[in-house]
């Protein structure tokens, strides 16, 4: 039994991935990809991926640096549009939208697919204005009261309300790193997305803040489909229902988190999750 497993077993109440008891195959599939390949210029970053991401579950992408997991995440809400050399082929779709289609409106797409980045990136505005940013650009006819309620709701949802309710008008840059990241989550959920993409959301944070974010992810997974890229295997084990292991742009193994960690089918996966490489 490896070390990771021991930790998992020793603290079963917090560490058992809750999705394990449920069969994720019963869930509706929200993100579906088939034969999906992506390039940066001539470099092929992703090779013929086939994956189905279930609704209202936490799916984590793990793998060593440069394996393409962040690239895939950025394709899901078309953030790669900003990168001039990026292009992709194959199927990548939501139930009703072909994400890659030229006709797909990225604004409408990103309204449904929120994103939280590696480094907290609050706007240099007040805490209130950060959360109100999305609603202000997407909702018409929002009264001041509606907006206040929405901001409060989002901040409560992201477990930040108690810490900031007395200083909503102060700059968001005065918050700690962990608070800033929770603010970014509040900002993302304030427009009511169906899917939340998180690109290593805790990699710039201290362990205590990481704990809070993980609790938060656990909490909000009932309402959102969450895809989280992480370098931290314990994190994947702690807070995701399904895990996808990437290596060199390919999906090596994919399945319920617990079975992937305790009983990996592939040797590569086993080596990675036990810390032999990566």
């Amino acid at each position, binding site marked *: 039994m490896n070390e990771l497993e021991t930790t998992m077993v020793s603290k079963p109440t917090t560490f058992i991935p809750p999705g394990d008891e449920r069969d994720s195959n019963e869930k509706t599939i929200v993100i579906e990809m088939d034969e999906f390949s992506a390039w940066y210029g001539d470099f092929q970053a992703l090779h013929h991926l086939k994956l189905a991401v279930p609704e209202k579950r936490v799916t984590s992408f793990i793998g060593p640096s440069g394996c393409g997991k962040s690239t895939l995440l950025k394709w899901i*809400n078309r*953030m790669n549009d*900003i990168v*001039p050399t990026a292009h992709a082929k194959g199927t990548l779709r939501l139930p009703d939208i072909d994400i890659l289609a030229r006709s797909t409106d*990225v*604004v*409408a*797409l*990103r*309204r449904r697919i*929120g*994103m939280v*980045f590696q*480094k*907290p*990136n*609050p*706007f*240099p*505005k007040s805490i209130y204005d950060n959360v109100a*940013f*999305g609603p202000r*650009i*997407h909702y018409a006819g929002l009264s001041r009261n509606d907006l206040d309620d929405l901001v409060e709701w989002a901040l409560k949802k992201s477990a930040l309300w108690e810490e900031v309710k007395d200083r909503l008008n102060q*700059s968001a*840059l005065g918050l700690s790193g962990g608070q*800033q990241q929770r603010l*970014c989550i509040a*900002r*993302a959920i304030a*427009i009511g997305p169906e899917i939340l993409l998180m690109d290593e959301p805790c990699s710039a944070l201290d362990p205590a803040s990481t704990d809070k974010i993980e609790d938060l992810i656990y909490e909000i997974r009932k309402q959102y489909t969450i895809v989280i890229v992480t370098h931290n295997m314990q994190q994947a084990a702690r807070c995701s229902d399904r895990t996808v292991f990437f290596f060199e742009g390919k999906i090596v193994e994919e399945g319920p988190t617990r079975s992937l960690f305790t009983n990996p089918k592939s040797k590569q996966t086993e080596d990675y999750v036990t810390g032999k490489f990566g």
Partner: protein
Amino acid sequence: MATLIESTPDVERKRNFRFRSLTATYVKELGVKSLLGACAALSVLTTLAIVVVLFTEASRFFQADDVYCDAAVVEDGVSHKCGSFVATSTRDSAGTQVACSTCGKLHTMPAEVTLVGFLTGSKWQPLIGRESEKKFGVWALITGTLLVSVIAMCLALPLGLITAIYLSEYANAHVRATIKPTLEVLAGIPTVVYGFFALTVITPTLKTFHDGFNTFNAMAGGIAVGILCLPIVSSLVEDALQAVPRSLREGAYGMGATKFEVSTKVVVPAALSGIISAFLLAVSRAVGETMIVALCVGSRPQMSLDPRDDMQTMTGWMVQMVLGDVSNYDVEYLSMYAVAALLFLMTLALTFAGNLVRRRFREEYQ
């Protein structure tokens, strides 16, 4: 030294090297440091010298200066200037004739100038009429300067800001490669060219739209100064926009913001301090611009806000005095220093305002 060599690896010791003299290194370092310090000090000293000269000469303008006697005197067959000074005892003697005590030449006592009169007066008539009728009310010149600057800024600030946003947020590499060099060319055109461009192209064009434009007018000067300031504004603002971290743009794009929303609601507010200081720098440039206004705005100081009129700016007056045939001792000539000192204070205030604004709006990016 010996112990150091002992402690180095064998391979190094075999090479038979010795350490550089520490004294020589120290002296060299000291020499370099003093040289660099001297170069930096030079600019400070030059600035100080200019400011001292400016204010000393300006103070002479407000003092009851003695009149220099330039009468030709023949002494021992050689002609030279008298060179003595005729005391101006009282200021209300303006226009009266006082004889030189040495050679007897009659001198007209200069006009009365007071600091309050200078700073509050609205009539600038140093060259017209008798000495007692000369007027030094600097507002006539300030109005000219401000009118030209306001017209210039109405053009340069919005256009520069829009150009910068386009270049930084919208334009692809290809378009940037065309527009940026063009703006650099615009910035490199000598101001005298702008001056006669205003006189020969802008003014006639304005006249086709409206008859009321004078041959020399503030509008043409303002437009030319605006074109001059445009590349300054756009390049400084673009630098400020580029300094906004990519992560902020990604954050906003990730929330489904359009390019316009990202630019106007995230990038521009985040770069506000840089943008405002770019604006203030452009204003100082416009206020101090000389050649364009000297060529095309005219030389009739008057307190008017009609852009069709010819008028004179503060800098325009200075050019006229430097190039004119006024004696270095005349009060009109000295007025140049007073105007220059005032202009200096105005641009200094703008610089300070810029620094304050920068500090006030500075955001620590993550």
